[in-house]
């Protein structure tokens, strides 16, 4: 029984979701269901909400001086408002061939990532954020710049995405870093089959502009527990290399290594204040949404 992030919030199994052909419908179903379970509306309201006063300093626009306060206190105070809530949300989707993996008839990691991306895009659109998408494997494949009107294009891009080529993080991500001229929220969805240091080196440039980064590490259950029985030749989906494997002999070692890998990533990302969430494709989507919302909330407080 997959765990849900919030008690009482029921989420549909990803396998069932995969039968919904329409990503928008899927995203709406998931997001609305998710939000209904929350006790507090997550939407961050109008951008003209007053936040606080601060003393006038030379150079401030005199139109922002609160004259009423001046009348009472005879001091110049400037009104400060809540931050601009219309932010750019860019989804960075890894569509390398390894993302096509699915075990035991489940959804592929790419599909699962698409569901997550669609849901997040829907959520962002609901709160008037601009949504864009970048898909990449060893290079950037498609680029939909963030826009309030690009929700449909984002879904369309996700729909078309197919994992056909081997992946690489460093090249496409460094290219991407040059694209983001404006600060925004970046959602990176990948399976991170690279060394933790290399991953971090690739991701760091994204942070240079002060972007907020949410990282979803999508893994299949089989990648986590290596639950194979038969001795077989295992083929690397990216390189095509085949290695004879007796699962039972190296299962324990493998599990340890993947956990070490996750732990290393967790440590590295947290060191750099990057939200990092491991997603299991056999579990519902709520964890990803929750992770996103908490990040978005943090972003709101940034003045």
């Amino acid at each position, binding site marked *: 029984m997959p765990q849900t992030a919030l008690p009482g919030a029921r989420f549909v199994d990803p396998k069932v979701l995969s039968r919904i052909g329409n990503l928008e419908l899927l995203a709406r179903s998931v997001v609305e269901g998710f939000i209904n379970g929350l006790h507090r509306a997550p939407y961050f309201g109008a951008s003209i909400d007053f936040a606080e006063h601060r003393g006038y300093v030379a150079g401030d626009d005199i139109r922002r001086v609160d004259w009423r306060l001046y009348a009472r206190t005879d001091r110049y105070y400037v009104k400060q408002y809540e931050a601009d809530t219309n932010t750019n949300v860019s989804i960075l989707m890894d569509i390398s061939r390894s993302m096509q*993996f699915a075990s035991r008839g489940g959804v592929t990691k790419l599909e699962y990532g698409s569901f997550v991306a669609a849901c997040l895009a829907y959520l962002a659109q609901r709160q008037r954020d601009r949504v864009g998408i970048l898909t990449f494997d060893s290079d950037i494949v498609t680029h939909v710049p963030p826009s309030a009107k690009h929700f449909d294009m984002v879904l369309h891009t996700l729909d078309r995405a197919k994992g056909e080529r081997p992946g690489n993080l460093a090249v496409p991500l460094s290219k991407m870093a040059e694209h983001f001229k404006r600060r925004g929220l970046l959602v990176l969805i990948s399976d991170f089959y690279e060394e933790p240091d290399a991953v971090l080196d690739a991701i760091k440039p994204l942070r240079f502009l002060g972007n907020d980064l949410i990282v979803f590490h999508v893994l299949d259950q*089989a990648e986590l527990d290596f639950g194979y029985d038969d001795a077989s030749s295992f083929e690397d*989906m990216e390189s095509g*290399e085949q*290695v*004879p494997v007796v699962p039972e*002999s190296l299962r324990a*070692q493998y599990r340890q290594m993947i956990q070490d890998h996750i732990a290393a990533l967790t440590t590295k990302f947290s060191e750099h204040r990057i939200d990092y969430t491991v997603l299991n494709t056999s579990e519902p989507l709520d964890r990803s949404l929750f992770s996103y919302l908490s990040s978005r909330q943090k972003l709101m407080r940034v003045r």
Partner: protein
Amino acid sequence: MAFLAPFAFIALAAIAIPIFIHLIQRERKRVVAFPSLMFVRRIPYQSVRRRRIRHWALLAVRAAAIALIVAAFARPFFRQSAAAAAAIGGSREVVVLLDQSASMGYGDHWRKAQDAAKQAIRSLGTDDRATLVLFSRNAEENMRATSDKSRLEAAVNAAKVGSGATRYGPALKLAASILARSQAKRREAVLISDFQRTGWSGSEDARFPDGMTLTTASVASPPVTNISVPSVTFSRASFSGQERVTVTAGVANKSEQPAADVPVTLEIDGHELQTERVTVGANASGSVSFTPFTLAEANVKGRVRAGSDLLPADNSFYFVLAPSAPVSILVIETGSNPSSSLYLSKALSIGTTPSFHVEVVAANRVTPASFDNKSVVILNDAPLPSAAGGGVLKQFIERGGGLLVVLGDHSAWPAADADVLPGRLAAVVDPTNGRGDAIGFIDYSHPVFEVFKAPRSGDFSSAHIFRYRAIEPTPDARVLARFDDGGVTGVERRLGQGRVVVWTSTMDDSWSDLALKPVFLPLVHQMVRYLARYEQPASWQTVGQVVDLAGVSRTRGDRVIVSPSGQRTPVKAGAAIVELNEQGTYEVRAAAGAAATARPEAIAVNLDAAESDLTPLDTRELVAAVTGHATPSGNDIAAPVEVTREESEKRQALWWYLLLAGMLLLAAETVVANRLSAREKFL
């Protein structure tokens, strides 16, 4: 342990197949796509586990199954002694058929045959029994079924080559009957011979039932030269009151090589008279005529020898000669016409075999003594003499004499002696067609007319019969010939041991012109020979013949027969049947008395001419005809009786058990493997 097909073990390499599959093939069986092997690659890969064979027992079962099946195809068998091999298949009843015909005397054939027989005897196991049958023209059990090998071998050693002809039929029938009586599990006949083709006609009714086997051991070898004397002919001539005989010997060469300058020698009474040389081509024959010699007395023993070769028995030909005894004839005529018996007496004076001694007497001068020592009486157009009446003639006939009654004008027969004639005499018939009557019907089956049976062997139709005396044949009479008008020409009846023939027309030129025709001479000769019951004395007999001494010997009372090998056999006066089993000259002596010192009567015995033909028979043909199975027979002597590798393997049939065990192991392997694979995903 040995193997009939050791090359099958190459297939043992198949044992590597399960191991190969296990170690190599299995790993490549399935490919699992996995996102990334970056972690798997980091784990030091050890295929040891994969290569390690976990189910040793299962592998062993598989390997053992393959090994067993391969071993089965290699057809293993245990090397055993003949006796041990025999014990496996149960006791054996063996009949050793040893050919002792004259042809086995060729070269070393007999020694080889004895060796083969002894080898067959030595192959016997403790429970086996064997019967030794010696055969030539006939077969006899020389040694009855016994397990005593030494006795059997002694019997083989004691056996000798005989003089008989080869006949396989009686031997095979005897073997079949001996084997049929046996209760042994395996019944075999071993036929040891030179397999002359002449010994097997194919029509013999010798047949082995199922379960009996016939093994052949041929001792035949290609003969280089085989000279034989198959026959001798004699030409007799009278010279100065003595009989001179010219001997002509045939010499046959039954081989592929011509024989040059073969010396041919004539021996008379043990003395060499003459030697001639003759050249005979391959598979041809020639003849040698010797200078005539005078034959003065009876029972002269002769022999013709031709050359010398590996089969000496057929190089000699034995014969016995005696001066020809003339047939004594009494011709009774009326005496009124001196030429009435001219044609008859002239015709009878010509004969040589036999010669005829003719005495012509007028009817009124006949006395009862006239009939003494006469074989035939001819009443030539004469009435029955008074001296012959009253049963005298009848007694003469009943003792074996012959009577020819030639009817004519003067023929008259008293009613008292009418029972001598084969019919009742009637009136004279005078055919009125002007040209006379002709002989229209002749009984060619009668000995008198048999020689005229072939075409152009005598034309009776050209004779004109102007008158004849009708006769009404009695029921026991046999009509020999009839005229065109149905009248009887000749009629015969038997009386006691003698014969009476009535010829109804004259044998001169008064009533017919038959005496002027060419058929007259042979007709008269035939009639006289028939009436005299003349048989040309046989100068020789063939081995195996049974003779009645009464026919060939004049000695009466107890006799002693001395065989060519010197064996003396006393014969009682009553028992006169003798079987001639040896080649050479038998002598018949009176047992006691003055006659015992006289020159003995002799019977010459020669080999069957077929024994000289050594052309071998295809033994497979013989085996197939006898057993119904075309079993190939070993040509070498040892093969038929020695247990061959194939035979051992066939008897033991170990392959069957190995194959069964292999199959059972495979079945067990299937069960075990299924159980293991149910527990584990992969074996």
